[in-house]
C-alpha cells in the first residue's frame, strides 16, 4: 500500500511511536517480536521505518520553506564602497551578503553581514564603528579579517568581513574521515588563532563549529571574533523587542559556558571552555552535555551542574547507541574500542581540565592548553592531572547550581519587572505625589538589588565563585535591614523572594519570608489591602505544600472572610481562595465540611463565569471527587458525567482535563461496582492517552494502573495479566528494571498469578519484585496480602517474608536515631 487511509494510520500510529522510541538493536528486536505476533503489521511498520530513514538522510522538510534565493531589494545596491551581489546566508542576527568592492581600488570579494540590531542614537553608531575598528586591527592568518564596520543610511549596522569559503570544522573532519591526530593538529591551528586574539585582549565569546571554518586546502579560519561583545553592548538599552528576542537567540546554548549561563564575568577562560567543548565534539562526535534532546532547563543544568562523561567513556558503545558510536568511530577511521583506548588517559584529562565548571580550575590560557596537546602529540607527559578523590566533595556544593542559575535569570527579569509595574500601575492614577513616591521606591529597589549583585564582582574577595542562590540567600537575609525604612517595599520584596523559594521547592525559607511579609503588610497596609491578601494566599499555598493543612486552613478562612467583604463574594480571587480552602479542609479528610464550600464555589462560578468556563468545570470535578470520597457514588457519577459531557464538547477529548475526568469517572464507576462501564471508560481514556501522550507517558502508565485495578476487581485475570505485563515492559524500558514502579508491576503480576493458582510463577515473580526495587512498605505487606493467600504456608514464600523482614530491620538499625 502506498497511501495511508486514516483508519489504517490510527492503527499504525502507536506501533510507530514504540518503534521510533527505540534505536539500533532494540528496534530490531522489537520488530522481530512484532513479526512473530503480527506479520502484516510488522511488514508495514518496517516499510514506514525504512521510509523514515530515507527521509532522515535526504533531510525531508529540514529546510525552511520561504528562503529567498536573493532578496530583490538589495542585490546591486551599494553599502559603503561595496556592491552587493547575492545573499549567501541568513541568521537570527541578520542576513549575510556576498559583495565586491565597487570603487575599483582593488578587487576583492567580501561578506557583508547586516545586523538586526537597533543602535541607540549617534553615540551608539560611533561606539559601534569604534569597536568595529578595534576588531579590524586583529590580523592573523587563521582569523577572518573584519574589513569594516559601518551603519547604512537607514541606520542599520553592518560588518564587512573577509569572505571565507569553507566548511564547519566538525563537518570538514567527518567528511574527510580524519583520524584523532589529524583532528588535533587542525585544532592546534584554532588555538593559535584564539591565543593571538587573547594577546590583543579580545575574547571571542561564541566559539562553535559554525564559527570555525576550514577551506578546501585545509586552512582554518575563525569567524566573528568579538562580535558577540559588540552586540551585547548594544543590547543594554532594551529599546527594541526584536533585539531582546534576537539576542536570546544569538547565544548558542549548546556552546555556552557555566559563567555565561549564570551571568558571571566573561574572560579568556570562557573561550578555553568553549574550545574544550569543540575539542570534545571533534574527538567523540558527541556533545559533552550528552546526546539527544534537551529542554532549556536541562541544558542549563547540564552546563552548570553535570560533569560530562569522559570522552573515552562516551565513545564506548552501549546497547542503545551502538550504531551511532560505530559510525562516529568510523568517521575517525577506527573502531569504538580502539577510539576509547586512544582517548583514555591524557586526552580525557586534557578535555576535563578545559571543561572545568570553575574558570579558575581550567587551563590558565589557551597557550597552556595548546602546550599540553603538543606534549601529548610528542608523547611527553602532560601538565594536567586527573581529578583527585578529594575533589569529588566539592561537587556536592555544585549540585544545586543549575536551579540557582535559573533563579538568577528569573530574579533579574522579575526585579526589573517589579520596579516597572509598580510605576506603571500607579502612575495611571494620575496622582503625582504617589507616582513620585513610587519612583523613589523603584530606585530604592534597584539600589538594593545592585548592592546584592555586587558580590559577584570579581574584585570582591571571593572572586566569581558566588552563585545566584547565594545572592538570593544574601538578599533574603539582608532584607530585614536592607529596606527597613520603606516597609511596604520591603514586604513586597520578601513576598517576591518567598515566591522564588516556593517555586524552587524550598518551602521552609518561602514560609519564613512570606510570614514576615504578611506581618509587615498587616501592620503597615492593614488586612484589607490587596497586597496583604495576595501574600496571605501565597503563604497559604506554601503551608499546603508543606502538608500543614490545618494552618493553611486557618489562614485561608481569614483571607476568605476579608475578601468576601473587600472584593465581594463573586470576585474570582475570592472564589479561588474558597476553592483552596475546600482543598485544605478535604486534605484533612473532612469531606463533609469541604462539600458545601465546593458547592458554593461551583454555584457562583456557574452563574458568573458560565457553565462552560474552565474554572467552573474544575469546580464540578472537585465536587464530584468529594462526593466520591463520601461514598455518594450515584451523585458523584452524575456530576462527573455532566462535567465530562461539557469538557468533551468544549475542550475536546484530547484535553488533559477531559482525560482526568474520564479517569475519575472510571474510578467512581469501579467503586460503584459497575465494572464493565468502568473498564470501558478507562480503556477509552487509555487509548486517547496512548495516541496523544504516547505509550511511555506517566499519565498513560497511571491509566494502565487504574485499568489493572478494575480488571482485578472484575476478576478478569487474563486481561489483568496482559495489562500488567505491558506496563512492566514500558517501565523496564523507560524507568529501568530496578525502579520501584517496575517492581510494583512485577508484584501485581505475581498477585494475578497467585489468584489463578499459578504458585510457582507467582513466587518467582514475587522474588524478582522484592529483589529489584520493591518499596519496603509494599514488601512488608506481602505477608498479609489477600491476593497472595494461596502462597501462605509455602516454604519458599515464608522464607521470602522472613528475608523481607530481616532486610527492613537491618535498614532501620542503620538509620540515625531521631530525637
Amino acid at each position: 500500500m502506498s497511501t495511508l487511509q486514516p483508519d489504517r494510520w490510527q492503527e499504525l500510529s502507536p506501533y510507530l511511536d514504540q518503534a521510533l522510541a527505540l534505536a539500533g538493536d532494540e528496534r530490531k528486536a522489537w520488530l522481530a517480536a512484532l513479526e512473530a505476533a503480527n506479520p502484516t503489521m510488522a511488514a508495514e511498520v518496517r516499510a514506514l521505518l525504512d521510509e523514515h530513514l530515507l527521509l532522515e538522510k535526504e533531510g525531508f522538510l529540514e529546510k525552511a520553506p520561504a528562503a529567498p534565493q536573493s532578496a530583490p531589494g538589495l542585490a546591486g545596491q551599494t553599502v559603503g564602497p561595496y556592491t552587493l551581489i547575492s545573499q549567501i546566508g541568513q541568521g537570527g542576527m541578520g542576513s549575510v551578503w556576498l559583495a565586491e568592492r565597487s570603487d575599483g581600488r582593488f578587487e576583492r570579494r567580501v561578506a557583508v553581514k547586516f545586523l538586526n540590531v537597533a543602535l541607540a542614537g549617534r553615540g551608539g553608531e560611533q561606539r559601534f564603528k569604534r569597536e568595529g575598528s578595534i576588531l579590524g586591527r586583529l590580523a592573523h592568518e587563521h582569523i577572518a579579517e573584519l574589513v569594516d564596520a559601518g551603519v547604512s543610511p537607514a541606520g542599520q549596522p553592518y560588518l564587512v568581513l573577509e569572505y571565507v569559503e569553507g566548511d564547519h570544522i566538525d563537518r570538514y573532519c567527518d567528511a574527510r574521515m580524519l583520524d584523532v591526530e589529524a583532528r588535533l593538529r587542525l585544532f592546534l591551528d584554532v588555538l593559535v588563532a584564539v591565543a593571538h586574539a587573547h594577546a590583543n585582549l579580545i575574547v571571542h565569546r561564541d566559539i562553535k563549529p559554525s564559527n570555525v571554518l576550514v577551506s578546501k586546502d585545509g586552512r582554518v579560519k575563525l569567524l566573528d571574533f568579538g562580535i558577540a561583545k559588540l552586540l551585547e553592548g548594544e543590547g543594554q538599552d532594551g529599546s527594541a523587542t526584536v533585539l531582546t528576542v534576537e539576542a536570546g537567540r544569538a547565544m548558542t546554548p549548546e556552546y555556552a559556558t557555566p559563567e555565561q549561563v549564570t551571568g558571571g564575568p566573561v574572560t579568556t577562560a570562557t573561550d578555553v571552555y568553549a574550545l574544550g567543548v569543540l575539542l570534545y565534539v571533534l574527538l567523540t562526535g558527541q556533545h559533552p552535555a550528552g546526546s539527544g534532546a534537551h529542554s532549556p532547563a536541562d541544558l542549563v543544568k547540564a552546563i552548570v551542574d553535570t560533569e560530562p562523561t569522559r570522552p573515552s567513556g562516551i565513545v564506548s558503545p552501549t546497547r542503545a547507541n551502538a550504531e551511532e558510536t560505530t559510525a562516529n568511530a568510523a568517521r575517525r577511521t577506527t573502531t569504538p574500542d580502539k577510539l576509547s583506548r586512544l582517548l583514555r588517559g591524557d586526552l580525557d584529562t586534557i578535555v576535563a581540565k578545559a571543561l572545568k565548571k570553575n574558570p579558575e580550575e581550567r587551563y590558565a590560557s589557551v597557550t597552556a592548553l595548546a602546550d599540553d596537546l603538543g606534549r601529548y602529540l610528542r608523547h611527553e607527559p602532560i601538565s594536567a592531572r586527573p581529578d583527585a578523590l578529594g575533589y569529588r566533595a566539592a561537587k556536592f556544593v555544585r549540585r544545586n547550581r543549575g536551579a540557582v542559575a535559573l533563579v538568577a535569570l528569573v530574579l533579574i527579569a522579575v526585579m526589573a519587572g517589579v520596579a516597572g509595574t509598580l510605576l506603571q500601575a500607579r502612575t495611571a492614577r494620575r496622582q503625582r505625589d504617589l507616582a513620585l513616591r513610587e519612583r523613589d521606591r523603584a530606585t530604592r529597589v534597584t539600589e538594593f538589588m545592585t548592592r546584592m549583585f555586587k558580590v559577584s564582582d570579581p574584585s570582591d574577595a571571593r572572586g566569581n565563585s558566588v552563585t545566584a542562590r547565594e545572592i538570593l540567600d544574601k538578599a533574603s537575609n539582608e532584607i530585614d535591614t536592607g529596606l527597613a525604612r520603606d516597609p511596604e517595599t520591603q514586604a513586597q520584596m520578601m513576598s517576591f523572594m518567598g515566591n522564588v523559594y516556593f517555586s524552587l521547592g524550598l518551602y521552609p525559607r518561602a514560609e519564613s519570608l512570606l510570614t514576615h511579609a504578611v506581618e509587615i503588610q498587616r501592620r503597615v497596609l492593614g488586612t484589607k489591602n490587596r497586597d496583604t491578601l495576595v501574600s496571605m494566599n501565597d503563604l497559604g499555598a506554601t503551608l499546603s505544600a508543606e502538608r500543614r493543612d490545618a494552618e493553611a486552613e486557618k489562614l485561608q478562612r481569614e483571607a476568605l472572610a476579608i475578601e468576601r467583604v473587600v472584593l465581594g463574594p463573586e470576585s474570582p480571587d475570592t472564589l479561588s481562595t474558597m476553592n483552596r480552602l475546600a482543598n485544605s479542609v478535604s486534605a484533612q479528610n473532612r469531606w463533609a465540611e469541604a462539600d458545601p464550600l465546593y458547592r458554593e464555589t461551583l454555584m457562583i462560578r456557574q452563574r458568573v463565569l458560565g457553565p462552560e468556563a474552565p474554572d467552573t468545570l474544575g469546580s464540578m470535578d472537585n465536587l464530584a471527587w468529594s462526593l466520591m470520597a463520601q461514598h455518594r457514588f450515584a451523585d458523584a457519577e452524575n456530576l462527573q458525567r455532566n462535567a465530562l459531557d461539557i469538557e468533551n464538547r468544549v475542550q475536546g477529548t484530547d484535553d488533559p482535563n477531559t482525560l482526568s475526568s474520564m479517569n475519575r469517572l472510571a474510578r467512581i464507576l469501579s467503586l460503584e461496582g459497575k465494572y464493565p462501564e468502568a473498564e470501558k471508560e478507562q480503556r477509552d481514556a487509555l487509548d486517547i492517552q496512548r495516541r496523544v501522550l504516547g505509550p511511555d507517558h506517566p499519565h498513560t502508565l497511571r491509566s494502565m494502573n487504574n485499568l489493572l485495578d478494575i480488571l482485578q476487581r472484575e476478576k478478569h485475570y487474563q486481561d489483568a495479566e496482559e495489562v500488567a505485563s505491558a506496563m512492566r515492559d514500558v517501565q523496564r524500558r523507560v524507568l529501568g528494571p530496578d525502579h520501584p514502579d517496575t517492581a510494583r508491576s512485577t508484584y501485581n503480576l505475581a498477585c494475578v498469578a497467585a489468584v489463578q493458582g499459578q504458585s510457582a510463577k507467582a513466587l518467582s515473580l514475587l522474588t524478582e519484585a522484592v529483589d529489584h526495587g520493591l518499596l519496603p512498605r509494599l514488601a512488608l505487606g506481602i505477608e498479609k496480602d489477600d491476593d497472595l493467600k494461596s502462597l501462605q504456608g509455602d516454604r519458599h514464600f515464608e522464607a521470602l517474608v522472613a528475608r523481607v523482614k530481616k532486610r527492613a530491620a537491618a535498614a532501620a538499625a542503620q538509620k540515625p536515631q531521631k530525637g
Partner: protein
Amino acid sequence: MESAISSLMVAAERGDAPASEALFAALYSELHRLAKRELARNGSGVSLSATTLLHEAYLDMAARDGPSFPDRARFMGYAARVMRGLVIDHARERHAQKRGGLFEITPLDTEVLENAVDHRELVQISDALDELVKVEPALAEVVDLKFFCGFSFVEIAAMREISERTVQRNWEKARIYLHRKIRPDLSL
C-alpha cells in the same frame, strides 16, 4: 478589533466554524501588517524570521488586549497555522514574480540557502496537513511550528509541556505521513 482576537479564540475553541475563519483572517492581516512594519523599521531587503515575527505579534497583541489575552503557547498554536498560510502565499507570490510590497520570511540557521521547497510542493504539504489535523492533530501542529515557523524541538516541547523526545517522535511520524501523502508513487 482590540479584544476581538481573544473572544474569537474562545469561540473557535468551542468549535464555532465562522469564528475560527474570522480568527484566521484577523491573525493573517495582523501578521501581514507587522511584517510590513518591521521591514519599514529595518530597511528594505532585510528579512525577518518567522519566529521573530510571531514573538513580536504576540507581544504586540497581548499588550493591546490586556490580561485576558491567551497565553503564549495557546496563541502560537493558532498563529502557527496562520503562518503556514502566509508562507505559502508568499511563495506563490514570489513564484508569480509580482513586484513590490514583498517581505521575506526566512529560516533561522545561518545555512547557505539551498533546496528551498517548491511552492507547489508547499501547497501539497499544506493540503496533507489539513488531512492530518483530523487524524492526529498533535502531529500537524509540530509541522506548523517547526517547518513553517522555525521553532526548535526544545521550544515546542516547552510550549506544549511535553518531552522533547515526544516532539521529535511526532515530527518523525508526521514526516512519514506527509511524505506518503505527497509522494505516494515513491518506490522503496
